[in-house]
């Protein structure tokens, strides 16, 4: 075996690896779902002790079920299967931790924790997703979200201002991510 053959074999192996990862589906829908959930989390942080919090009891499992159904159908039609369990686990973990952060913040009368805790939890969730996907893009987004949250804390805005700003920034950033990944998939196909 010569160097060219070895190089060519490795290049082909790498091509097959990338193709398989792409075809297993960058979880753009999971991202958008997680995004919407994290945005809703933020919008609810001020009402975490109100009956509105009950929303999560239904929205959480429904979101996870939607991701699982999507992954299952996609796997069946594409001919290559990955396990959706990791995505469902991340979504459920995010929901529980984000909700808990809001609850703890209010219970201990720490408004900053109640307001920004879920944001940090969401960013951590994206970091986990980045690791699963081996995606630098998703990792960069996670860090960007952390930076945005820290910056908002630094500006010392009022509760309403910071909530509105976080809501807007999260929504725009994450919808853009979902859209870009969707476009990326179309180009691949």
């Amino acid at each position, binding site marked *: *075996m010569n*160097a060219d053959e*070895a*190089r*060519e*074999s*490795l*290049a*082909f*192996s*790498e*091509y*097959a*690896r990338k*193709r*398989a*990862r792409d*075809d*297993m589906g960058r979880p753009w829908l999971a991202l958008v779902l997680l995004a919407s959930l994290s945005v809703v989390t933020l919008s609810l942080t001020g009402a975490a002790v109100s009956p509105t919090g009950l929303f999560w009891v239904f929205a959480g499992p429904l979101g996870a079920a939607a991701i699982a159904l999507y992954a299952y159908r996609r796997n*069946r039609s*594409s*001919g*290559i*299967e*990955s*396990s959706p369990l990791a995505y469902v686990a991340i979504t459920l973990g995010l929901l529980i931790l984000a909700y808990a952060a809001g609850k703890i913040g209010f219970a201990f009368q720490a408004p900053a924790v109640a307001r920004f805790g879920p944001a940090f939890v969401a960013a951590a969730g994206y970091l986990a997703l980045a690791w699963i996907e081996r995606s630098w893009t998703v990792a960069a987004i996670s860090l960007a979200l952390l930076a945005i949250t820290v910056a908002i804390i630094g500006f010392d805005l009022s509760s309403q201002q910071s909530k509105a700003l976080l809501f807007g920034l999260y929504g725009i950033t994450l919808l853009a991510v979902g859209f870009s990944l969707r476009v990326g998939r179309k180009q691949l196909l």
Partner: protein
Amino acid sequence: MTHPSSALDDTIHQRVRLGILTVLSESRRADFGYLQEVLEVTAGNLSQHLAILEDAGHIQIAKAFEDKRPRTWVTVTRKGRAALASEVATMRALLDGLGGGQRS
């Protein structure tokens, strides 16, 4: 002292078979049609390569009917996964030894 290339596994060294194991090692399982499309081989050619890998214990093949259509699912075994890792490591070592180790 043996040459590093003697560590290469002839069963999986072939380009298509290396591709099959790579795809399968990334996923839970893949079907025949998908492998054929990604690796750009004919059905007959792919069948031959799959048979070789199955005989060597690197993959498992399961045939089933789904929505009244026959479907062949292929899964990599633990042995196949280990063999792939070893093969890739050996090729990289070879390239490093040759001074042309441009890793993709």
